[in-house]
């Protein structure tokens, strides 16, 4: 199974990863090979099989809706690339 340049460019936008033209060519080959490998799945008969999400079929545990965490904003923001007045700074979103 092959993957087109257009598909790779589209997926790169979805994944928020910048790829240049040269990388697209390399990815075309590598992702094509990986998808070839993955295509072995189509041979399996899975008509009456339930998909498996958890090895032990465990379900999400619920806990009481109580505050269990204390505010650690300073500790968390100390490791951020850019903050000001307790806010995370990012490039301007709305002109």
């Amino acid at each position: 199974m092959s993957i087109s340049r257009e598909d790779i460019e589209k997926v790169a936008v979805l994944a928020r990863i910048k790829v240049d033209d040269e990388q697209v060519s390399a990815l075309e080959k590598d992702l094509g090979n990986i998808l070839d490998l993955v295509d072995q799945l189509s041979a399996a008969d899975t008509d009456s099989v339930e998909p498996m999400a958890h090895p032990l079929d465990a379900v999400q545990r619920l806990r009481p809706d109580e505050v269990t965490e204390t505010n650690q904003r300073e500790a968390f923001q100390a490791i951020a690339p850019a903050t000001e007045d307790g806010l995370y700074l990012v490039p301007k979103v709305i002109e």
Partner: protein
Amino acid sequence: MHNKSVAELSRELESGKISSVELTQQFLDRLKQEDGKYNSFITITEEQALAEAKAADELRAAGKATAWTGVPFAHKDIFCTNGVRTTCGSKMLENFVPPYDATVTEKFRQAGAVCLGKTNMDEFAMGSSNESSYFGAVTNPWGLSSGEKRVPGGSSGGSAAAVAARLVPAATATDTGGSIRQPAALCGVTGLKPTYGRVSRYGMIAFASSLDQGGSMARTAEDNALMLNVMAGFDPKDSTSIDREVPDYTATLNEPLKGLKIGLPKEYFTDQLSPAMEEQVRNAVKEYEKLGATVKEVSLPNAKLAIAAYYVIAPAEASANLSRFDGVRYGYRCEDPKDLMDMYTRTRAEGFGAEVKRRILVGTYALSHGYYDAYYLKAQKVRRLIQQDFANAFKEVDVLMSPTSPSPAFVQGEKTNDPVTMYLEDIFTIAINLAGLPAMSVPAGFVDGLPVGLQIIGDYFAEARLLNAAHQFQQVTDWHQREPK
């Protein structure tokens, strides 16, 4: 001292022959002197280690020592350590200093163990050779005398190389598709991947959440039991952690193996395995027969689909998990972003290495509109078929045995050009993660002077039985004691 096991070091400390500060200093000196050859550590935490050692000596003096108090070890650099940078082998987290401890980290702290530093790994645990680390490849201590640098396996290659080179007696590790067992095999050490949910994933940087599991690496099965005694247990902070009693894994190490029923999956003894490797594995199985075990062939008919299912599920989950690295809250951010989209796309293009990007893109593709059913849902169905194969096998036998890897340690650079060739390294280990089962790799011989691993697979929560089987094997063999030259 560097040749002693955790159990032996624990007894040395208990007898008062040496203090933890002295022991820690000896290990640190050796680590700093030797690791240039292997690059098995990303960060050495000398100051913290000596402070922990001092605290351990005080605890012991106060009569509050555990088996681990004052014993040096290392963490794979995927476990968050409060105040000590945790890189996950990535440029993205080159300067990331977590403001909290992983549950596994906290448990070793409480046990009084002394962490010497953080071991090297494939970037975000994606790899089977430790060559995808931003901090450079790790060199296997085995085979160096031949003049060729070989890979230690991956992704826990730093932990495996460090234990093999006697830099630490034990190290934590993680396993998503074979990342404990394959490097343990290639470096001639003993490693255990527990049942999914047995060890908390809280603070263990996520790769593929339905497959990731923390575990242990050391030279002996007994030391792995000592590690699991610390690591295992329910954690309310991990929503997939299993609430089930933790036995003392050292208590059953000496049970006799008479009557143990061993299954050999015929799909794992095919022409993908070299005759020399197969001979070593079959010899190991013969040792078990001498110990009273019986052996029969079993079949895992869907095992051949495991790699295909894994390379949908793991990248899909990775693409979701790694979306958190966006340059906003922590980690790398590109220089001078011109707008938000530019910041996201360049941060991720510059911060992630090639293999991580490939997997994110494959995963994004498999989850995208029009492909979800054909890839992700199909893979989840195949996953159940694989699990059922194991369930059927465990109706007939107690444990399964196979080679851990198809070949011994290969030369650095040999498989880096073709991702799919590299993926086949995990051909015997990946199905176990899909099923969520526990498994070990135990040193079981040599081919051309390079270690061979025997994989022992158990039913859910059968870690004690695996450790018992590995320990008994190590009472009658000395493969695990061999030292690289």
